[in-house]
């Protein structure tokens, strides 16, 4: 019964909160909201221990037969294998910490109960997504988290901007979801099942490597992942999704939901391995996205948008790793990223609350003295994001990706170049934000010091952001492979094309130097501000370029011009519904006939008799004509 409890408890909490949050006290809401996720985390730990102690044997549980028709069966089946355990633990533990933090962050909100109802529903759906044993159930969770994302982005629904952002997120991800649904149809069409294990076992038998059909399916699955994980070309919704409350951004749009695409690709890795083209596409999307998002993050003014672009960029790293076949490296980066990005978001949230909901970084500054606790945890988060060598979790996960993007069989020097350039950009945008917020002169007064309920989760996450890296150390530094060993039964080990230790050292050195160089550049740019730099940045072309990047490479405008405007134009033309014309036209024709016939109904008797005469003349004419025909 244990695995099913993990999603069931948050669902139960969500149900209770939805039904009666207006009737119970705030403290009861807190207990139910946090308690359900906490309890779920405990159960997840027990299940993880069970799986670990039984030699990583997956724990499968059939809860209920959902659909049973001839030719198709789908159940509410949960399967806890190594990959699901990793995701489940991250979701429940990070989710619990964020829930605790949210009790402080959302304390004064009037819709406190509704917030926790949605959050619990989200955690439950996300757990269904990662624990599902068949793709249909996975899709249910996938749509469930999309719904919760929509509800929570538009949480403050009284502002139309927020509703717009929520709709945008929902509709843009819908594009990917549709692709994924088609992929599911194709898989079922060709393999007759949606059970993930059977798909993974039978796909290599059915399809040769590079088969067009498997490539199509892999690309469609990639489309779904791209939509959910905000990768090029469907990344436009994530920066706007920051309209939601900060804990939502931390939980959904940084730690868990946006990595569902990574989970999907890792889960269906056999399909991707069968299709080198789809893998290459994944890697290229990841590489291009991480650079574009990194550049956009450089010039943002809103602290949450910096983090949003940073999230896109970091998920780009994960996609790069997936595209190179470095499955466990991607998952490892997901874990560390969940820790430090949740930390950064919640730190940013603490700053935002402290400055009375001020999000513009240029109105912050000098907070080092005012918020020392936040300063230190934020520094740890930034360091981890930038991948400062040796002491941060981010270093171990990201350097592994950078190295493997060259050295793995699916790797390429261009990927590696994108990775190290991304490292430079990461250092720059992260510490630009850091320096802007915590150094310089005080521009806005602190009016509220975050309490322990917000700070304790930050300390825990700061600790996790540091030590989580030590479970997987590269060859050059101790060679610990706890994490990849754990995932070995589910995800195949990466196949290396390069084994050169010297090259690995060089790669690490270069990325570390570039990351530190990025920090130095940010320091010069933001704190020192030499005249030459200021002049350079205020050149007209530069100003335009910065605006261009700030607007996310104007992709929104591009989509607006390419898709939205033509669609609006067409619907304006079709305002009176062309298809309906067939039906209204029939009705109008009938009406016209009716009017014509009604005119003959004049009520004047002689007209009617005239009609009789005409009929008689006609009949007799035919008769005479027939007589002539016969004779």
């Amino acid at each position: 019964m244990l695995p099913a409890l993990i999603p069931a408890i948050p669902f139960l909490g969500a149900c209770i909160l939805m039904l009666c949050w207006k009737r119970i006290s705030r403290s009861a809401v807190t207990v139910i909201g946090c308690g359900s996720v906490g309890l779920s985390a405990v159960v997840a730990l027990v299940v993880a221990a069970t799986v670990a102690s039984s030699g990583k044997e997956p724990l499968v549980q059939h809860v209920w037969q959902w659909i049973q028709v001839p030719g198709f069966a789908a159940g509410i089946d949960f399967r806890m294998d190594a990959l699901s355990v990793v995701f489940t633990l991250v979701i429940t533990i990070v989710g619990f910490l964020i829930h605790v933090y949210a009790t402080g962050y959302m304390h004064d909100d009037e819709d406190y109960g509704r917030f926790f109802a949605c959050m619990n529903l989200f955690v439950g759906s996300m757990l269904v997504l990662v624990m599902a044993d068949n793709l249909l159930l996975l899709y249910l969770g996938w749509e469930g988290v999309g719904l919760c994302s929509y509800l929570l982005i538009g949480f403050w629904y009284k502002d139309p901007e927020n509703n717009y952002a929520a709709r945008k997120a929902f509709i843009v991800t819908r594009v990917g979801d549709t692709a994924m649904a088609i992929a599911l149809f194709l898989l079922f069409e060709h393999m007759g099942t949606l059970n993930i294990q059977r798909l993974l076992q039978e796909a290599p038998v059915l399809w040769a490597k590079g088969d067009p059909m498997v490539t199509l399916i892999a690309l469609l699955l990639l489309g779904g992942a791209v939509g959910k994980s905000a990768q090029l070309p469907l990344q436009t919704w994530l920066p706007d999704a920051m309209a939601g409350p900060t804990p939502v951004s931390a939980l959904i749009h940084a730690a868990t939901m946006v990595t569902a695409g990574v989970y999907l690709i890792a889960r269906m890795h056999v399909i991707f391995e069968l299709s080198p083209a789809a893998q290459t596409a994944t890697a290229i999307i990841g590489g291009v996205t991480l650079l574009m998002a990194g550049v956009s993050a450089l010039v943002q003014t809103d602290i949450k948008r910096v983090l949003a672009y940073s999230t896109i960029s970091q998920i780009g790293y994960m996609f790069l790793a997936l595209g190179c076949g470095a499955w466990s490296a991607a998952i490892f980066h997901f874990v560390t990223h969940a820790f430090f990005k949740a930390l950064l978001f919640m730190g940013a949230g603490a700053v935002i609350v402290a400055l009375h909901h001020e999000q513009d970084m240029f109105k912050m500054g000098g907070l080092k003295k005012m918020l020392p606790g936040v300063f230190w945890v934020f520094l740890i988060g930034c360091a981890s994001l930038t991948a400062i060598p040796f002491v941060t979790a981010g270093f171990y996960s990201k350097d592994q990706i950078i190295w493997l993007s060259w050295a793995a069989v699916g790797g390429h020097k261009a990927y590696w170049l994108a990775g190290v350039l991304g490292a430079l950009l990461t250092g720059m945008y992260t510490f630009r934000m850091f320096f802007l917020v915590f150094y310089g002169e005080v521009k806005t007064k602190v009016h509220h010091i975050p309490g322990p309920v917000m700070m304790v989760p930050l300390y825990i996450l700061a600790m996790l952001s540091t030590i989580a890296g030590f479970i997987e150390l590269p060859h050059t530094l101790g060679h610990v492979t706890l994490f990849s060993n754990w995932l070995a039964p589910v995800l195949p080990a990466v196949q290396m094309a390069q084994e050169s230790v010297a090259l690995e050292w060089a790669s690490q050195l270069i990325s570390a130097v570039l990351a530190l160089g990025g920090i130095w550049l940010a320091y010069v740019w933001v704190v020192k501000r030499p005249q030459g730099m200021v002049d350079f940045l205020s050149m007209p072309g530069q100003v335009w370029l910065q605006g261009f990047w700030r607007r996310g490479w104007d992709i929104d405008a591009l989509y607006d011009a390419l898709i939205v405007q033509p669609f609006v134009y067409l619907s304006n033309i079709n305002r009176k519904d062309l298809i309906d014309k067939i039906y209204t036209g029939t009705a109008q024709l009938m009406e016209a006939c009716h009017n014509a016939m009604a005119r003959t109904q004049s009520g004047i008797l002689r007209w009617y008799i005239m009609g009789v005469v005409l009929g008689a003349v006609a009949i007799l004419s035919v008769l005479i004509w027939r007589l002539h025909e016969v004779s």
Partner: protein
Amino acid sequence: MDIAFIVAALIAVAATVRVITCYNIMHALLYLVVSLLAVAVVLYTYGAPFMAVLEIIIYAGAIMVLIIFFVMMLNLGLETAEHEKAWLRPRIWIVPGIFCVVLLGELLYLILQNKQPSAGIQVVPPKQVGMALFGPYLIAVELTGILLMAGIVGAYHLGRQHKKTVHRFLENNLNT
């Protein structure tokens, strides 16, 4: 061709033409009586003396007299004739006239097409008619009786004057 038939036919047609061109309804009715009497002669020449008698008694005698009394009851005078004059304009009758002439042409054409040999005029005595009427046509006779009764009941019902429920003065107001 019997000379009686020709004369009677000519009188019938001429009288009927007068019926349809006459403005005064009384004159028209009298012309119609003449036409019916002429048709009775034609019937007689075609070996149906009983029918000729019925034509005179019922058509010319009963039906026409009924209409004449009706017209007299409504007291339709010269005004009506003036109306008729005003209504009978070429614009009104030219198109129906053309169609009717076409119909007549077709009828005549079809009748003249008839090439069947005939034994000439055969007299059918009233006895034979009576035998047929109360033999094979018994049901039809019964139905005709019902029809006549329905005519009586209908005429009584429709012709009944409704009681005036309000004063004449008020009724005039209502009508205007």
